[in-house]
């Protein structure tokens, strides 16, 4: 009976209009399945057996990517509830944990973010230990380093959004460092030399920290700034670079292996 059912489903016009090939049963169909599907065609048709072993890649790049997707989806759901203003941010989070159905979206999003940082580190470590940054993959290693930085920045900007004590003080500690940027920070070495007509160009109201947090202290302007970066700016750049990263994995000859 199940066989009949599955047959009538896979033979139906609806199914066939979506999946051109059906469940592959021969090599021709295995190839067509990979070519005909926009998600699957990220992969080549054939791969090195050595390259796809769990013991070789640890599936860590894939894990990082999967967690990026988890963050995108759960983040989108969180955006339905959350308003990035000093007035509402905290109460929205309280509401979320008390009133929203399936109340683990915030948990998934937060723990997913932590897990993604760890996964990216371990992925980098794997790539290093297999020497996969060596020619011809130098450039992709560099794309990866930028992705690592973006991952950290995503986590950092998101940390502020709950607007509780943990959030603002962690961001205060972090952003205070910007004050000490050489030349560009109010208390950075060399900034005192940048003068115009005896007036300092770099002061607490114009330095790198001010640009980062949109004011002299962490406040509403910081919240909206971090919100926009966290939900739109950085994810867009990261998504683009992940695409570049995957493209390059293939163009550099697939997952690395001994010559």
């Amino acid at each position, binding site marked *: 009976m199940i066989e009949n059912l599955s047959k009538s489903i896979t033979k139906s016009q609806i199914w066939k209009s979506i999946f051109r090939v059906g469940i592959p049963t021969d090599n021709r169909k295995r190839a067509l399945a990979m070519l005909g599907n926009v998600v699957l065609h990220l992969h080549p048709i054939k791969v090195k057996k050595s390259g796809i072993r769990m013991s070789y890649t640890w599936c860590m790049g894939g894990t990082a990517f999967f967690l990026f997707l988890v963050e995108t989806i759960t983040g989108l759901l969180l955006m339905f509830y959350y308003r990035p203003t000093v007035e509402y941010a905290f109460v929205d989070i309280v509401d979320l944990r008390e009133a929203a159905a399936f109340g*683990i979206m915030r948990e998934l999003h937060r723990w997913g973010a932590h897990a993604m940082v760890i996964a990216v580190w371990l992925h980098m470590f794997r790539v290093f230990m297999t020497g996969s940054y060596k020619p011809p993959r130098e450039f992709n290693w560099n794309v990866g380093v930028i992705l690592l930085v973006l991952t950290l920045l995503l986590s950092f900007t998101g940390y502020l959004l709950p607007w509780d004590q943990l*959030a603002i003080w962690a961001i205060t500690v972090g952003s205070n460092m910007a004050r000490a940027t050489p030349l560009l920070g109010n208390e950075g070495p060399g900034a005192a030399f940048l003068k115009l007509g005896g007036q300092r160009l770099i002061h607490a109201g114009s330095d790198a920290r001010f640009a980062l947090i949109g004011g002299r202290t962490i406040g509403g302007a910081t919240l909206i700034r971090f919100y926009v970066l966290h939900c739109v700016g950085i994810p867009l750049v990261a998504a683009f670079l992940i695409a570049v990263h995957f493209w390059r994995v293939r163009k550099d000859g697939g997952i690395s292996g001994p010559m």
Partner: protein
Amino acid sequence: MDFVKHAINVLAYPYWSFTLVLIAFGFMLWSKGLWSKRGGLILLAAGTLFFLVSLLDPNFYLIVAKADNVPIVMMVFLVGFFVWFAMHKAIENDVRVSRGEPLFEKTEVEDRIFTWPDLVFSEFICMVVLTVVMVVWSIALRAPLEEPANPALAPNPSKAPWYFLGLQEMLVYFDPWLAGVLLPGLIIVGLMAIPYIDTNPKGNGYFSFRERRVEIGLFLFGWLVLWSQMIVIGTFLRGPNWNFFGPYEFWDQNKVEALVNVDLSEYFWIKLLHIGLPGNWFLRELPGILLIAFYFFVLPVLLKRTRWFKKYYDKMGPARYYVGATLFLFMMLLPIKMYCRWLFNLKYFVHVQEYFFNI
């Protein structure tokens, strides 16, 4: 029991623990047994046992069980496991090579298999497992939420997000322009430079250790000994006022640590020459400036003459050698400053407060 706890509290102090970690690190690079299955199991058992028994201690439990610290505990175990695993695979390949057998990866690299179903299915299984892990984790552990933000009331300690705690820990030894801006920037630059500096053609596309001992040693030193260890210290062992607390120590808000740190200029002009600090800041700081200049500009040239570094200079050429040496010296600045602080209470090599130029 109390004696053991006390001993561990004392040994956890950075000047002991860092030294112990350095010794352990040397052993790691030298040992083979550590990376065998038996060595791994013993390490895992010891680590787990230490962790579980420690959970009985209320102070240890309090800090480890903080919601945001749970991922860091997981990270410690995961990093430990994967370092062991990578080294295990590497040593396995080394042994194969020395026996004249092909590399493990080499036996399968010519074997091209269809992506469907092998890769697609293992990816699918990974996704299912990860989904289950994430959902269970999210149900078991609530995301933290503290009091509403209050800009007038700073918690003590105020900590950055955990992945930046290594940088915050560096603030103990360096001013923010180094710990928070220059050194992190150089970490990124250094990581990006790796493929261009490392000219060793071997070890590309397979696990190996013998062929890349120095590269792996340097990477692990930066990533494990410095970055990861500093995060662990910053997260678990730094309490109110960023004072140090052993793992079983109560976080006492009133603990005071006497800070009697001395600048290099004072050592030079007062303790050595007995003539008092010069009024002119440049003259006052000249010894420190010369020392730093020597460290960054003369030392690489001198090292080049030694047999060991000459080998690298010849292989890498001047540009790679000097960029690599500079990055290396920047990395070593941290442990050097740490030991100078612990041994001589050194505050700054160069201290020009007028321009916030302190090293």
